[in-house]
């Protein structure tokens, strides 16, 4: 089943799964962030293979460029780059592996018994800016405007939460946080 797949798809899938596993299992959080950035790069390469060129660039800019830099920044700010996580017992790992493996098994089995998904009519160029912009600003214009409100709310919330509290107007009072 795997040997008649094209080499770029196989290599990219292998790298994606491998780096995703490293994100989860790495002890050092900085290594996790870097592996996640690498995962996003490989997913962008998948988008290029899938003819979604604009999405590939947006994925790189938004995820690898903005969100992961934010993660890295918080990680450095909190000085968590050393191995600070307490050691967990092996039972947690076994239980988590069984749960995730069961989900994988169930989804795969459900897909096996369901009907075959076939490509209907692949159209050239739907992943380019022109086609996506037409759809985004005609049929999806109301959700697009609502995302602006969502972003504003998230920005106000993040600034409010991140603001250093002054004496007297503490967001969480000291005696509660120490207890």
């Amino acid at each position, binding site marked *: 089943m795997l040997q008649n*797949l*094209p080499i*770029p*798809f196989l290599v990219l*899938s292998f790298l*994606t*799964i491998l780096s*995703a596993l490293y*994100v*989860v299992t790495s002890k050092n*959080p900085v290594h996790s*962030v870097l592996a*996640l950035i690498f*995962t996003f790069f490989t*997913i962008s390469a*998948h*988008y*290029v*293979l*899938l*003819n*979604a060129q*604009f*999405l590939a660039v947006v*994925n790189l800019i938004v995820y690898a460029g903005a*969100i992961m830099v*934010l*993660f890295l920044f918080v*990680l450095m700010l*909190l000085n968590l780059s050393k191995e600070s*996580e*307490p050691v*967990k017992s092996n039972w*947690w790992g076994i239980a988590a592996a069984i*749960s*995730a*493996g069961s*989900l*994988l098994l169930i989804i795969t089995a459900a*897909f096996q018994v369901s009907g075959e*998904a076939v*490509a*209907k*009519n*692949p159209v050239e160029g*739907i*992943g380019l800016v022109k086609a996506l912009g037409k*759809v*985004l600003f005609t*049929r*999806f214009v109301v959700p697009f405007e609502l*995302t602006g409100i*969502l*972003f504003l709310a998230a*920005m106000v*919330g*993040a600034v409010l939460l*991140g603001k250093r509290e002054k004496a007297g107007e503490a967001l*969480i009072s000291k005696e509660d*946080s120490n207890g």
Partner: protein
Amino acid sequence: MSILNIFNQVEISHYIYLSTVLFCIGLFGVLFRRNAIILLMCIELMLNAVNLLFTAFSTYMGDADGQIFVFFIMVVAAAEAAVGLAILVLVYRNTRKTDVSFLDQLKG
């Protein structure tokens, strides 16, 4: 247009398997790790698995709607990351820890 004509060589079921595996890796991370930053990163990983599946279906079905949904998922992920990290900084400032098992002391 593309580097290789992927429709003739890769079936969509391979993308379904790939993104299922990615999603389950992210789920394993959420269940296994305790560092709150790693938990947020695993959630991003799960969201990206869904994004990949949306894009694959959108391309194979010749419909641009799936790629628009990927935009909206990215927006929600960005907002979630910003607010989540702000909450995380606040928790760290009060407790000096980012361990989520410490948060069972929260009282309403």
